[in-house]
């Protein structure tokens, strides 16, 4: 409430300061997540940067209304939803480690294994049944392992 007495300018400066501190800490990991999703490379990731900027802008807009919510989690959720909405336009990968996967498989694998989001939360986020998330996850892991094996040993799905 003190900010409101100091006027909108001071309020905005305060919010920007808090937001900048959050971005300084979280942006590296979030950009990595975004780059994994878009299957771009570490050095060239324009689509991931666009997604992350939009998600962070949304976080900034609701910053005052965040009560107990973690801004990192909020941004990650927005990032994932944004990617799910727009991924059909950027179907193929561009050199990232997950290029072999479909956008939905990338979403599930990154959220489950890199971000450590629980299965039921991923299902809720993507609007899919849990069994479907489990199936997509298993298929994605198998595809990645098969791709790995084919570079070394002869190709073949050994997964039972």
């Amino acid at each position, binding site marked *: 409430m003190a900010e409101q007495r100091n006027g909108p300018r001071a309020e905005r400066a305060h919010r920007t300061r808090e*937001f900048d501190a959050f971005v300084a800490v979280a942006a*590296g990991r979030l*950009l*990595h997540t975004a780059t994994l999703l878009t299957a771009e490379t570490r*050095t060239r990731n324009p689509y991931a940067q666009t997604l992350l900027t*939009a998600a962070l802008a949304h976080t900034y807009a609701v910053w005052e209304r965040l009560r107990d919510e973690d801004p990192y989690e909020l941004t990650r959720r927005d990032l994932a939803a944004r990617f799910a909405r727009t991924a059909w336009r950027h179907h193929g990968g561009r050199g990232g480690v997950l290029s072999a996967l479909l956008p939905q498989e990338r979403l599930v694998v990154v959220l489950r294994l890199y971000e450590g989001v629980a299965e039921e939360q991923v299902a809720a986020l993507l609007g899919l049944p849990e069994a479907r998330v489990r199936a997509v996850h298993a298929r994605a*892991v198998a595809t990645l392992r098969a791709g790995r094996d084919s570079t070394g040993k002869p190709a073949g799905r050994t997964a039972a």
Partner: protein
Amino acid sequence: MSRYEDKEAAVRRLLDTPHPPVPGHLAGTAAERGSRLLRRHRAVRRAAWTLFALALLAFVLWASVAQPWEAPAAETTPPFDGL
């Protein structure tokens, strides 16, 4: 099962690479776009409330003039059997 977990661990290692460098303008651009979003949301909310208040005022004025709860005056004169 443990074999599957081994595979998951391998994929986890595959994903756990160094973070990409964050461009310096990212926070600034996001804050600027965010404040524009916020302004737009506020303007929309203000417009909606203004519209609601105007509609309410119009209704009250109309009701006080038209007084629709009053029974309408009889259209025909009742027969007069007096005298």
